[in-house]
């Protein structure tokens, strides 16, 4: 179980998170939804130790992660695919993937995981010696997710995986995320503006507005909620 409790975060004087709490049970997909500037990315960044909360607690499988440096959080089994995808443009596809296995927990499995990633993304196998900067947006997304898998995470956090991608690629990405969860037991926290597609795979969702959770529920309940339909689904 991944738990965020009463998280308060500020950029200098400006407070952006006001007591955010959420839970991601083992093996489930949870969606964190909300419009631009609601504080979704800040929540993920803080979870990864890239920002320090002024208050609150983050824990993963009973291990306190608050105030722990990023690389140690990664080594404890959490991995974030950031909004900017996080591929190294100047490194080859293969080097990008190999770097994914940098955490000590992942290194012994490097070759096996690499095989698995190439099975999932045959395209990356073809382009392994190409520089990641020369790939298309969809291919870079594959590198980003492939790199995340190389780290052997127990839980994957994805920040706006649909951003800037063609609808078909977005669909494939979400199908893959769902498959990784259902078949390989990966726990997933996905942050999205695209509420429809995120709720299409999620078990549970939270609505973040102006730095606070304003609604939560199972996917079915959220989809049935009239306020959410009006605000996010455009129905």
């Amino acid at each position: 179980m991944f738990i965020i409790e009463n998280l308060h975060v500020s950029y200098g004087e400006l407070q952006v998170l006001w007591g955010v709490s959420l839970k991601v049970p083992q093996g489930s997909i949870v969606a964190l939804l909300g419009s631009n500037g609601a504080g979704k990315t800040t929540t993920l960044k803080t979870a990864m130790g890239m920002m320090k909360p002024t208050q609150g607690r983050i824990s993963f499988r009973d291990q306190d992660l608050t105030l722990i440096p990023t690389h140690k959080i990664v080594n404890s089994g959490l991995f974030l695919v950031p909004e900017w995808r996080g591929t190294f443009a100047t490194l080859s596809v293969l080097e990008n993937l190999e770097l994914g296995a940098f955490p000590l927990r992942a290194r012994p499995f490097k070759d096996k995981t690499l095989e698995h990633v190439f099975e999932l993304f045959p395209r990356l196998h073809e382009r392994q010696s190409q520089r990641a900067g020369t790939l298309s947006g969809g291919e870079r997304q594959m590198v980003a997710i492939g790199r995340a898998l190389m780290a052997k995470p127990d839980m994957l956090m994805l920040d706006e995986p649909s951003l800037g991608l063609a609808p078909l690629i977005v669909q494939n990405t979400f199908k893959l995320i769902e498959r990784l969860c259902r078949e390989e037991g990966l726990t997933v926290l996905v942050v999205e503006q695209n509420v429809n597609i995120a709720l299409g795979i999620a078990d549970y969702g939270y609505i973040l507005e102006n730095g606070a959770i304003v609604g939560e529920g199972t996917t079915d309940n959220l989809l049935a909620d009239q306020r959410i339909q009006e605000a996010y689904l455009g129905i």
Partner: protein
Amino acid sequence: MSIETIVQTLLFGALIGSLYGLAALGLSIVFGVLKILNVAHGELIMLGGYGSFWAFNLLGLDPYLSLLIVVPGLFLIGLALHFGLFARVVRFDEEDRIKNSLLIGFGLTLILQTLATHLFTADERSITTSYSTAAWEILGIRLPLVRFSGLIIGIIVVVALRWFLRRTYWGKAIRATAEDWRTAALAGIDIRRTYLVTFALGAALAGLAGMLVTLQGSVSPNIGLQWTLKALIVVVLAGLGSVPGTFLAGVLLGVAESASALAFGGAYRELVGIVIFLIILSIRPQGLFGGSHA
């Protein structure tokens, strides 16, 4: 002017240039990865030079063997300097890093120079070995062995450094951090440790260059600035991110300097570097080899 004189002068330029290249490698890797400009890099070269000088004079150690002490020694000094001074700077955003590192670097320059003057006096010191004047002669061209060794060592360092950066986990971590430290952190790379190791690596390379500088010429407490300046010109000429490119740019600068000495007389030697510096900055600010990456 005979053809021999021309070839001889250009060859000397290339050999001196390989020292420029070596001096620049450390500065370039630290600049590229940490985004700080260590203007005290020349002083680290000076310290390396003194290390070899004293190892030779007190322990009777051959200067090439002294590298076994000097290089790890400078690595440790690099660790200490980063830990005590520059680690504070790399917490800032990238623009602030440069400014603050300049201030710290200039301060460090003064401290190390004064310290060296107090400890070693301001005398020029050199290392004279049994082979100091040995040279090969091919078709009337003299190839002094001590200077030639700078080129050989330079090539070995380039190959080894490139291998390290491309093939090892740490090397890839360093390259990833150079490109985007935030993403590198998210990949599980310990950024602070990468910075620490990279800075120490830069200092170790300065130590290596320092030995060669002293063996081929001399060392005194105030040689630092001129070497920082040469290294800086080479870094601008080469651009960031290419190890062989940096070394090659050093050699080119050496050749250009001696070519200008041939053409306009020795007085303009130093001017050439500055002119190249300005031309490159205005027409190709990314450098000749910038962006080709390790």
